[in-house]
């Protein structure tokens, strides 16, 4: 037990907490995207999917792990950030980190912070009514109405861009911390990382684009022409 506490308290141990919680959140993103894409299958399919998600006990159990990760990942991240600031009390007069480190690796606190703000809003918009409330007329309509708001859709897409940048650094960093990045696997890891930092956020972005530009297009066009 003492050994485990010592492990967690070490610099590498804290980093491993970051990587494991981060990777767990990445697996959640896959599930979430698959669920979201069911929206394209139509109203009925999506409504039954959300019903299944709310009522399934296994999902409820995993949900606890998910919220624990959502809290621990930023919490440990902030603690590490504070500790790291303390490791250099006297700042450099000139410090050109930008010439040595990629952009994504330098802005993880910023991207992470915005993703956290986004999550609070996101949980309020979708998770809370679906999980605890009674949605009228349906889950599908809740999503469609939210995304018909241009401001909300824009915020959603901006958050996804930040998520992309966060994962651009975070995904490979998680494997580096777990000691799994090596000459043998670096190519494979970069390929899988591309799926996570580019394709998955892109997949999520199709929804606000679809609902804002295409779903309402018939009625918007009619309004523009003065036909009610």
């Amino acid at each position, binding site marked *: 037990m003492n*050994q485990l506490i010592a492990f967690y308290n*070490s610099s590498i141990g804290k*980093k491993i907490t970051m990587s494991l919680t981060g990777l767990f959140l990445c697996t959640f993103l896959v599930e979430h995207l698959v669920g979201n894409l069911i929206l394209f299958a139509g109203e009925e399919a999506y409504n039954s999917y959300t019903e299944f998600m709310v009522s399934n006990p296994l999902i409820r159990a995993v949900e606890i792990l998910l919220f624990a990760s959502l809290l621990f990942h930023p919490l440990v991240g902030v603690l590490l950030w504070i500790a790291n600031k303390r490791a250099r009390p006297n700042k*450099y007069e000139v410090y050109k980190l930008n010439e040595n480190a990629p952009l994504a690796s330098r802005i993880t606190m910023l991207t992470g912070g915005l993703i956290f703000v986004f999550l609070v809003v996101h949980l309020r918009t979708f998770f809370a009514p679906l999980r605890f409330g009674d949605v009228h007329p349906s889950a599908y309509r809740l999503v469609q109405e939210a995304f018909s708001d241009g401001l909300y859709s824009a915020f959603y897409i901006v958050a996804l861009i930040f998520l992309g940048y966060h994962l651009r650094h975070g995904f490979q960093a998680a494997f580096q911390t777990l000691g799994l990045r090596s000459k043998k696997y670096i190519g494979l890891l970069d390929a899988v990382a591309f799926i996570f930092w580019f394709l998955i956020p892109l997949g999520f972005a199709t929804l606000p684009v679809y609902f804002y530009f295409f779903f309402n297009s018939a009625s918007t066009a009619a309004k523009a022409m003065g036909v009610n």
Partner: protein
Amino acid sequence: MNVTLKVWRQKNRNDAGRFVTYEVKDISPDASFLEMLDVLNVDLVKKGEEPIAFDHDCREGICGSCGIVINGRAHGPGRGIATCELRMRVFRDGDMIVAEPWRAKAFPVIKDLVVDRTGLDRIMVAGGYISAKTGGVPDANAIPIPKPIAEEAMDAAACIGCGACVAACPNSSAMLFVAAKISHLALLPQGKVEATTRVQRMVEQMDKEGFGNCSNNYACEAECPKEISVLHIARLNREFIKAKVL
């Protein structure tokens, strides 16, 4: 060529320190950065002023003594070089150059550009060695080591312990230094024997010294004069997890 040098002057550990600007004239573009400081110091001595203190020894990039943050870069602009290998020709005539010491809580400034890097030595003392019996020199090929492994261990062993990784890291982390030492020994049969205790002790000492945590920015690799790969950090993490968890 002429340059304006804005350099950190600090009398001793307790002095607050400040930047002082000097005009350095008629410097050969082929002079090294340290030779430019030598020229300036001769002038300062002639004027009866205290010369600028800076670490140096071999002046050919193999000893790891020198180390100055020049224009925001550890060992100055360029890749794979120590400060002594930086030539004045990379700057333009009339340039303003800012020279500062390595800045980290674990590297307190002793004087001007000289910092206390004994923290790295203490990490080595904690486990950066093999407990070999002394005596006759063993036969070189008594233990066969595959060429790729030997090469990788040699790449890690190239670390000269200058501390540029710490200076370049936004978190003042010494992970690349520790990783190079761990990797170098863990890859070889002689080092494997004590690998488990070594990694735990060295990481524990690294944390005790007040170095920051690695956040995988990889600025260390970019500034390392020996271009040591961050994949050695992955191996350090692997060795640490193996030792602690498995």
